[in-house]
């Protein structure tokens, strides 16, 4: 079983035997099987294929019917405990390289911001609400929105360590903070620019975040100018053109280009706390058939370059009068 010996054995097998057998058995020549009766080989393959397909289909059926609390969920959480730390470790290992690359190529300001934010929150428990960037921006948009007192969010700081590939057709990321840091399912995730998404599930030290631009994401939003309510759905775009589509609850209200949208807020602040800036209205289209309109919203948070994010773990001063009592968003 040594590395040196085995290739020669493998080579001997492939060199001599197939040639000998291929001359005698036509089907073996076709499939290139080195040894063994064809019937056994085919039977094994058929059995393996049948069982594998059956297992996969069963899993799909179980997971599809039972969501979000299907019997597969424990497996997912188990996998998160294994792969989460591995992904975080892999990310930490290459971060000096990717940081250097982005420093050379990308914006130095952003890099400095990230570093400062990361340092500031080295204890992981630190409150990003005290970080100047977020505080200022939140305050700025709050002023715009005329919604008061959105300043008391307790945030847990985290970094994006893995991004769901386009082949998966979902917009999800892994962050390096989990239940041990206070992150729970259905918590709001923000960054310095605005709303990022919500926590889908949390492992001990990592969590999976569903981005607002995912096609399955729905966020309750409020137009700052008219205070009108609506629902923002992600367009699921796999590239840089991730947008949200706004459907207003009141069909008579018309959003205007440049309107800012903040979160409407869910009951109890989960999954979305109220007053977080989401994006700007970029385009307004009339819906065919009825009078209502839909608007395309560009999110403030750049979903293609997510790095430092904050997970809302609570409010410092719980307020019973938050606008979320009206209803919520998925």
């Amino acid at each position, binding site marked *: 079983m040594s590395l040196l010996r085995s290739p020669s054995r493998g080579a001997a097998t492939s060199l001599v*035997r197939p040639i000998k057998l291929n001359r005698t058995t036509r089907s073996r020549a076709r499939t290139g099987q080195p040894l063994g009766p064809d019937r056994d080989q085919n039977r094994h393959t058929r059995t393996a*294929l049948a069982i*594998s397909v059956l297992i996969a289909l069963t899993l799909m059926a179980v997971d599809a019917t039972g969501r979000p609390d299907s019997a597969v969920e424990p497996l997912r959480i188990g996998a*998160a405990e294994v792969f989460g730390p591995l992904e975080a470790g*892999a990310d930490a290992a*290459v971060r000096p390289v990717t940081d250097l690359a982005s420093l050379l190529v990308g914006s130095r300001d952003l890099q400095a911001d990230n570093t400062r934010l990361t340092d500031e929150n080295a204890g992981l428990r630190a409150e990003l609400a005290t970080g100047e960037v977020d505080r200022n921006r939140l305050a700025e948009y709050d002023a715009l929105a005329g919604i008061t007192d959105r300043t008391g969010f307790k945030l847990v700081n985290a970094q994006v360590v893995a991004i769901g590939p386009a*082949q998966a057709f979902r917009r999800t990321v892994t962050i390096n903070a989990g239940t041990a840091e206070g992150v729970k399912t259905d918590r709001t995730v923000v960054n310095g620019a605005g709303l990022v998404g919500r926590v889908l599930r949390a492992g001990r030290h990592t969590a999976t975040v569903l981005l607002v631009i995912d096609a399955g994401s729905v966020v309750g939003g409020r137009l700052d100018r008219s205070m009108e309510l609506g629902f923002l759905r992600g367009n699921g775009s796999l590239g840089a053109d991730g947008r949200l589509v706004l459907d207003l609850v009141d069909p008579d209200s018309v959003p205007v280009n440049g309107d800012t949208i903040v979160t409407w807020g869910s009951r109890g602040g989960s999954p979305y706390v109220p007053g977080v800036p989401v994006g700007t209205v970029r385009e307004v289209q009339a819906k065919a058939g009825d009078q209502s309109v839909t608007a395309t919203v560009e999110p403030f948070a750049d979903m293609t370059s997510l790095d430092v994010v904050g997970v809302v773990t609570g409010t410092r001063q719980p307020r019973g009068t938050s606008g979320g009592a009206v209803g919520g968003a998925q």
Partner: protein
Amino acid sequence: MIVIRPLITLLLVLVTVTVQVGLFTKLSIAGVVPDLALLLVVAAAIVRGPAYGTVLGLFAGLAVDLAPPADGIAGRWALALALAGWLAGQARGGARQPAVATVATVAVSSLAATSVYALSGLVLSEPGIDVASTLEVLPIALLYDVAITPLVVPLAMLVWRWLDPTPVRW
């Protein structure tokens, strides 16, 4: 060896999926990352035959299904990679097949796996999947997989041969 072989196999799958999800997202092309798990499965199928390729595909696919941040309905990558493993095993020309045949096998398997995954999502009406986005992703995934084949598949084949030098009996 009875214990060590499955352990090494498990380790290989863990490392492959971690690298695919954790590292290659930084080298993605339009969000598409190369399907390293698929390359591992194809290499195993070429060396060990379709039955082994199918079973390894099932487990590697399951890992891709469950490893965060994946949130699709589980079992879809498992199905896709199991079929890809079977396909690669059927198409193989033996351990001494020319490099061109390996590349062609990877191309066909990649196309099959990505399509099966997308198709299963369409059938289960998963969000975000439509024909347009599938057609957008398919060629990039195919080209990326093929481009990285020379770096991964020969190495993976070597590892599989080292792992079990005894000739395949079935």
